[in-house]
């Protein structure tokens, strides 16, 4: 926290010194580039922390600029009404952005090309409108002839207002990064599907990110109107939108200071080169290519790498351990029942009328030949695959085809077949993220304390001898070998304390001893929580060790069911599946 305050104060000091050192003109130029920088921060936030690429963010910049210019005109620049109007206008644009993002992202992972293309189309439309609606916007010549806010001189005191806004947005964005909300955003970019199984409605998260991005950009656009004394269609155009991207990319989209640096550095460089060098745009383009190829994280990444070589250590937030709130009560409880469930992938029917009622607690092992529909059964329960016919219900309440992120609120946790963890996050951050799941309220995402929540379910797993995750806390989860990933994902799955645990081949790729450890962990959890645990396995020793009921799937249907001994001695089962030992 001290680091963020310090960095913000340093930035403030630096900006305050500019007028005295470099004079009015440079200050005026810097004011413009800082406004662009704030808009680039908005783009960087959406791109780097939301994982979707907005191609039309100048839309918010320009529309806010026009609105501010018109209100300045109507109120003769009076300070309070205009400040109010700027915030209200930015909030309206943010609300529109939120709505658009909700529409686009609902029901799909990532954004595909849709989001980028839609924002591109919108910015083209707005630019066209600004050019055509002459009576309103002044058309091609722009809207001008209004006073600046509170009559502040664009070559003088207006700069301080801009500098103040820069420091505020930078401080807030850096703070966000350190809060649980920032952790959720990094998890979102790293592994969206996993975040959904932890109960996060990722489309909503992305909508808030885009709203914040629009809000910041609109604030900058409003001050742009005062700074320039004219708003032209270019301010809401495609070219500015793409420049925002370039600034964010070159400076570093993953850090608010990066986007700012990109806009200011390229701004001054262009201003300098434009007058002296005919091919300056080509030069800037090459600079863009060079930075993006050499350092995908942008200039700020190179700077931080250099600083670390010189002995600087990035600031690590330490949070005192503290007790978490209880998990949210489940929306549904009772026996999990599948009735006549049909699921297809393209032309292939995978589940073909699966009927089964699970016990309310204890173990069930699902076995069957490769391609029998075991994983699909789990996917049909959590909503990851669409049930075409039939019903999945929980204690009599239907949960058929609910979105994946709702599964955990019904008490269902799932571990995927290919161990899926947040690869770009450290092991510790992975576990912190899981600790938020099913416990955090909205306010908790903006407090530091939840990062120190000590979840009893998790501690009991980590304290087991042989579990190496505590020692590996600082390591990126992407660097973990397969078996450790399995263990980490098991912890991610069990930390929110689900009452129904679906484990898809939890010991694949593990040695017999590691398998035994996993069995211990799973058994311990079941014993302590009285949960129902469904395990897909090929290893008969594990099935036996769990002392579980066994369900045999074959060709998408229930083929047999019984105790381990009954299934072992069933000649019909032996015909389709023998199972093996490690």
């Amino acid at each position: 926290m001290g680091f963020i305050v310090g960095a913000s104060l340093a930035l403030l000091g630096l900006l305050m010194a500019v007028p005295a050192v470099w004079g009015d003109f440079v200050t005026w130029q810097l004011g413009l580039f800082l406004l662009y920088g704030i808009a680039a921060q908005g783009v960087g936030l959406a791109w780097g922390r939301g994982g979707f690429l907005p191609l039309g963010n100048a839309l918010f910049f320009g529309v806010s600029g026009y609105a501010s210019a018109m209100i300045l005109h109507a109120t003769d620049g009076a300070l309070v009404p205009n400040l109010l109007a700027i915030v209200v206008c930015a909030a309206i644009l943010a609300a529109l952005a939120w709505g658009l993002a909700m529409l686009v992202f609902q029901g799909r992972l990532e954004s595909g090309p849709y989001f980028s293309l839609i924002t591109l189309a919108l910015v083209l439309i707005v630019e066209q409108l600004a050019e055509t609606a002459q009576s309103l916007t002044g058309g091609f010549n722009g809207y001008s002839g209004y006073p600046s806010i509170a009559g502040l001189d664009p070559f003088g005191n207006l700069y301080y207002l801009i500098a103040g806004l820069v420091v505020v947005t930078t401080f807030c964005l850096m703070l966000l990064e350190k809060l649980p909300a920032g952790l959720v955003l990094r998890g979102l970019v790293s592994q969206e599907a996993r975040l959904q199984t932890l109960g996060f409605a990722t489309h909503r998260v992305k909508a808030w990110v885009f709203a914040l991005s629009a809000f910041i950009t609109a604030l900058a656009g409003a001050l742009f109107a005062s700074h320039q004394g004219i708003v032209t269609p270019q301010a809401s155009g495609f070219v500015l939108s793409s420049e925002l991207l370039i600034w964010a990319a070159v400076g570093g989209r993953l850090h608010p200071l990066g986007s700012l640096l990109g806009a200011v550095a390229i701004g001054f460089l262009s201003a300098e080169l434009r007058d002296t060098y005919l091919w300056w745009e080509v030069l800037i383009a090459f600079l863009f290519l060079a930075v993006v190829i050499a350092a995908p994280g942008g200039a700020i990444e190179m700077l931080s790498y250099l600083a670390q070589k010189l002995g600087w250590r990035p600031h690590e937030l330490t949070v005192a351990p503290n007790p978490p709130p209880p998990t949210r009560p489940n929306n549904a409880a009772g026996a999990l029942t599948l009735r006549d469930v049909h699921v297809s992938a393209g032309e292939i029917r995978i589940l073909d009328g699966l009927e089964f009622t699970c016990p309310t607690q204890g173990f069930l092992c699902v076995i069957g030949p490769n391609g029998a529909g075991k994983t699909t059964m789990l996917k049909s329960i959590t909503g990851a695959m669409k049930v075409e016919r039939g019903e999945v219900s929980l204690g009599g309440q239907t949960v058929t085809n609910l979105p994946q992120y709702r599964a955990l609120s019904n008490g269902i946790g799932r571990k995927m077949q290919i161990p899926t963890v947040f690869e770009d996050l450290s092991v510790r951050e992975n576990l912190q993220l899981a600790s938020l799941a099913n416990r955090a309220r909205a306010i908790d995402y903006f407090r530091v304390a939840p990062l120190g929540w000590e979840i009893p379910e998790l501690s009991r797993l980590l304290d087991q001898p042989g579990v190496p995750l505590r020692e590996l806390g600082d390591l990126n989860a992407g660097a973990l070998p397969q078996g450790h990933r399995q263990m980490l994902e098991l912890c991610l799955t069990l930390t929110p304390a689900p009452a129904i645990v679906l484990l898809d081949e939890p010991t694949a790729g593990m040695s017999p001893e590691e398998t035994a450890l996993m069995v211990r962990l799973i058994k311990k959890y079941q014993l302590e929580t009285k949960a129902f645990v469904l395990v897909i396995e090929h290893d008969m020793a594990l099935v036996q060790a769990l002392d579980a009921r066994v369900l045999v799937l074959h060709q998408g249907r229930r083929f047999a069911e019984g105790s381990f001994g009954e299934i072992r001695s069933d000649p019909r089962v032996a015909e389709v599946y023998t199972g093996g030992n490690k």
Partner: protein
Amino acid sequence: MIIQLEEVAGGYGDTLIHKGLSLSVEAGKVLAVIGRNGTGKTTLARLIAGELPLVSGRIRYLGSDISQLPSWERARAGIVSMPQTDMVFDALTVSENLALAGATPPGSLIERFPRIAQRMNQSAQTMSGGERKILGFVRAMVSPAKLLVLDEPSEGVQAENIDHMVSSVREACANGVACLLCEQNIGMVEALADAVIGLDSSGICYRAEGGEVSRDAMLGTLSL
């Protein structure tokens, strides 16, 4: 000797996983590499396939030094690798996946894995985890190989199909192919390996050949 590693060191970035590993595989033989998680089986497979750069040491293949050869040239030279994850092209159909291997699967292979023949026009991403492993395995088996590098082919595969994998590899070895098999499934190793090395965090902790290979000793190297 098909492949020979001399004091090979390599890993990820600054983190060295192997710090001087030597081994060799003869034509027609299977060398199994066992070890707990994190001891570097996958890293070893990737070093041989050329997906990770050597930090030091040398890899000889058919007598020539391939230490600096990029992975696609190694693949062309007959080093066929089946990675542990992402072993198939999800967006392609089964037959397209196999077509990329450059040959059609022989009848014997199709008989062992009839699912593959039934699913020729299905896209690989709609197959189950185990079926994808089998497809990745079949693709590796039909590729023109002198050295097969198989990283945990048995993971998520039912016992019958593991047995079929064993007989397929045996058949390839009878034709002079060498195989490096990274596995946790001791049963598969027992059934297939001519020699075994066990890895732990400090390097090779166990070597056995032919009749010396014992299940108990192998389980010993896997325990903490």
